[in-house]
Structures are given as structure tokens and as C-alpha cells.
């Protein structure tokens, strides 16, 4: 546990000692704001909720999260610091979890900076703040899913651009499996369990439930096991690619 904490501290420090953190937070805030007001018609909808904000998160994360996760392992392998890291007396799992938690905390910080939206909606009307809180939690948990995939795929390559593209593609597949279009493709001919499996694999299916303010154990288990599986594979890849 001590190792995890030390790794988190170093990694978070690395985000904020480079322009990455500031650029990311600015773009995240700018894009999520623009989408909420111009595409999501926050004002025109005339409803006191933040749905027009949260609905875009799965799509925003699709290219913003890979930008955060791509450096996690690929950079260490490129610069050779992975050799330093893996010859310290730290178990690999502690490094994997530490790096993941640091990136996740960083996303949490970016999410916290969207608080002006929450103030705005509370100023304009009387939203259900319980639902908003649930949506924030849901968004953060979903970001964890994206990040686990990104961290895992970052360990596959020394090249950050490849890590970015791989992550975006895999996350896109996880997203699309819940979209109507893909669902209707399976409808009619595929057995129900296939349809259910495909739908249940999607970020969207589970995120949409949480955004409605319902934190269902099944959705929590989905994201937790997704993160668990990808981090487990991540540690295995780091171990297997030692020295290559």
C-alpha cells in the first residue's frame, strides 16, 4: 500500500509539472461547456438538470482519456525509466494500481473544475442535486473504465501515438455496442442472450442508468470488473514485456 501511495504522488506530480495537466483541464472545460450550451441546448431545454452536460461525457472521454492514459507506460518504456522502476523493490501490481489511481484522481480534479455548471443550474432553477451527484459519480466511474483500458494498452507499445489510437478504438467499440444502431443490427436474428451481452458490455448502457440518478449494484459491478480485468492484464503485459 505504501508503494501505491508513493507512485500516486510521483505520477500526479508529473501531470502538474508539465503543461499536460493545464492543457487537458482547459480543453476538457472548454469542450464540455461548449457542448452543453451549444449542442446540448442547456438553456433552450428549460430544464433544471445537467443532462445536456453529462450526455456528452462518453464521447468526450473517447479522445480525452486516451490522451491522459497513453503516456502511463509507453513513455516509461521509451525513455527506459521502466527499468529503474521495475528494479526498485516494488511489486508490479502496486505500480500499475498507483499509476491508474493517479490518472483517475487527475480526471476527478478536471471534473471538479466543472462546478460552475452546477452553480449555474442551481441559480437558474431547482435541480435534483442527488441526481447530479450520482451523474458525477457515474461519469468518474466510467472514466475509470476508459483509463483502465488506456493504461493496459499503453503497456503494449513504446509509442504513445499507437497507444492513443488503440485505446480510442477499443473504447469506441465499448461505447458503440450500446448504441441503437448496433443493437438493431443484432435484433431479429441474434438470440436474446447475445443481444443482452453486447448491450451489457457497453459503457453507454451502464452510464445512462447512473445518469438518471440510479446507482445500481449491477452497474457498479460492471465498471469495477472492467477496471479489474484490464488492470490485471496490464500488470501481466508489464511483466511479460520486461526488458524488451
Amino acid at each position: 500500500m505504501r508503494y501505491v501511495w508513493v507512485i500516486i504522488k510521483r505520477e500526479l506530480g508529473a501531470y502538474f509539472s508539465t503543461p499536460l495537466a493545464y492543457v487537458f483541464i482547459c480543453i476538457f472545460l472548454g469542450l464540455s461547456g461548449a457542448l452543453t450550451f451549444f449542442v446540448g441546448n442547456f438553456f433552450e431545454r428549460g430544464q433544471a438538470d445537467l443532462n445536456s452536460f453529462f450526455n456528452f461525457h462518453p464521447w468526450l472521454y473517447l479522445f480525452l482519456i486516451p490522451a491522459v492514459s497513453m503516456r502511463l507506460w509507453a513513455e516509461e518504456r521509451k525513455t527506459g525509466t521502466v527499468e529503474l522502476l521495475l528494479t526498485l523493490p516494488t511489486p508490479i501490481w502496486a505500480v500499475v494500481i498507483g499509476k491508474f489511481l493517479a490518472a483517475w484522481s487527475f480526471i476527478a480534479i478536471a471534473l471538479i473544475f466543472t462546478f460552475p455548471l452546477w452553480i449555474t443550474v442551481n441559480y437558474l432553477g431547482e435541480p435534483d442535486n442527488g441526481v447530479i451527484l450520482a451523474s458525477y459519480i457515474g461519469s468518474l466511474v466510467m472514466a475509470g473504465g476508459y483509463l483502465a483500458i488506456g493504461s493496459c494498452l499503453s503497456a503494449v507499445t513504446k509509442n504513445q501515438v499507437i497507444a492513443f489510437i488503440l485505446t480510442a478504438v477499443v473504447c469506441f467499440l465499448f461505447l458503440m455496442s450500446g448504441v441503437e444502431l448496433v443493437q438493431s443490427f443484432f435484433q431479429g436474428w441474434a438470440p436474446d442472450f447475445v443481444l443482452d451481452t453486447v448491450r451489457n458490455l457497453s459503457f453507454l448502457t451502464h452510464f445512462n442508468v447512473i445518469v438518471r440518478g440510479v446507482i445500481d449494484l449491477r452497474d457498479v459491478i460492471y465498471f469495477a470488473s472492467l477496471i479489474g480485468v484490464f488492470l490485471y492484464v496490464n500488470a501481466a503485459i508489464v511483466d511479460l514485456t520486461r526488458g524488451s
Partner: protein
Amino acid sequence: MNRPDEMISIQGLTKRFDALTAVDNITFSVKRGEVLGFLGPNGAGKSTTMKMVTGYLPITSGHASVCGYDVENHALESRRHVGYLPEGAPLYGDMTTEAFLGFIAEVRGFKGVDKKRRIDLSVQRLGLEPVFNRPIETLSKGFKRRVGFAQAILHDPEVLILDEPTDGLDPNQKFQVRELIKNMAAEKAIVISTHILEEVTAVCTRAVIIANGRLVFDGTPEALASRSPSRHLDDVFRELTTKH
């Protein structure tokens, strides 16, 4: 099996990469008080051997242990006793010298006053005071190498493994690093890889030469020199590493 003064024990160590045998059945041990010069042409398997002993590369066959701890079965315990300067001294460029040494100290389990004392001692030994607060990526090659060295001796390890510690240093810095190695030699077992032969006569009490992954010489620098009528190490080295 291991006598207490036998700090590094390598038995039948072999590393194969597909068809290539990089290290071929090497056996030697290093005792406390010895400074072992690990020599060989580029690509002979010096770094590969060091990477296996420090636990970075998986071993194909054979055994290596540090202070009695097998590097594979008791990986974390053996790493606690080793200070390692990897080839090229990879470091986290975004961190300052202070933050980087702080990170290493925390991973090694030092806190508070003890941590500060150890960092101060390392910094003083390597003369890093002028660059203490500077980001590592802005440092000269010589300073980077010395930061890597400082990291390796921070926890006062019983075993030091240094892969080309004087590479990239100017003559004064080389002298300083060699003095440092000599001063620490009495209570440690030190392995330095190098292809600078005068380094062997300057600091080493013993020389091991490998060529094409095989051990071709193990003895004192004097014994090495006496093998050639000219008593030039260069001649002996060339003869040992090219005849096949």
C-alpha cells in the same frame, strides 16, 4: 550454501532471446570488499547479465542471488540490497533532482529526518548541490549520470551494480566517481561494467571478461596484464575477446 561474505552469486546464468544466446552459462561470485570490473566488447552480454541480476530481465536458466536472496524467487528482498545504475542512467526528466531522490527514498521506505539525511548524504557525495532544484531534463550528461549514481547509493546498499558509471563524464568527474567507488568498496560488493580498460587498473580488485556471452577471464587486473608480453591490457583484451 551461500557464505556470508559472498554477496552476489551467479551460477550457470543463461539468457536466450529466440535463437540468440546473449549470456551463455556464466558462473562467478562477488565477495564483500571486491570491486569487480565487468568487461567485454559491446554486445557481449554485460548489460544483459546485470539486468538479470537486478531482476529486470527474466532468467532463461541458471540462478542468481544477492545477499542470499534468489533474484527471481525472492525478487523484492534481493532488490532491497541492490543499488543499480542502469545503462544510460534513465531518469524522470520532468522531476527535479530533489523530487526524484525524494521519490526513490520513499520507495525505499525512508521518511522524515532519515529521508532528508540520506538524500543530503547522496547529494554531497556526488556533488549535486548546484543542480538540486533543477529539472533533470535540463542537466548535462555528466550531472544526469551522477543523479543516477546518487539514486543507486541512496539506501547504502550492500551490493552496487553500475552499468558504465563513468560514461559521458569528463576526466575530473571520472576521477571523482572512481574515488567514490574506492571509498565505498570496503563494506560493499561492487560490480562495474565498462569498456574503458584503464578503469580496471584504477579501481577494480578483480576483472571478469565476457565475449559472445561466455566468460573468458576471471582474475586480478595484474594477472590479466601479465598474460601479454607487452603488458598492455588492450592487447590481452583483444586477444581474449576475438579468438574463436
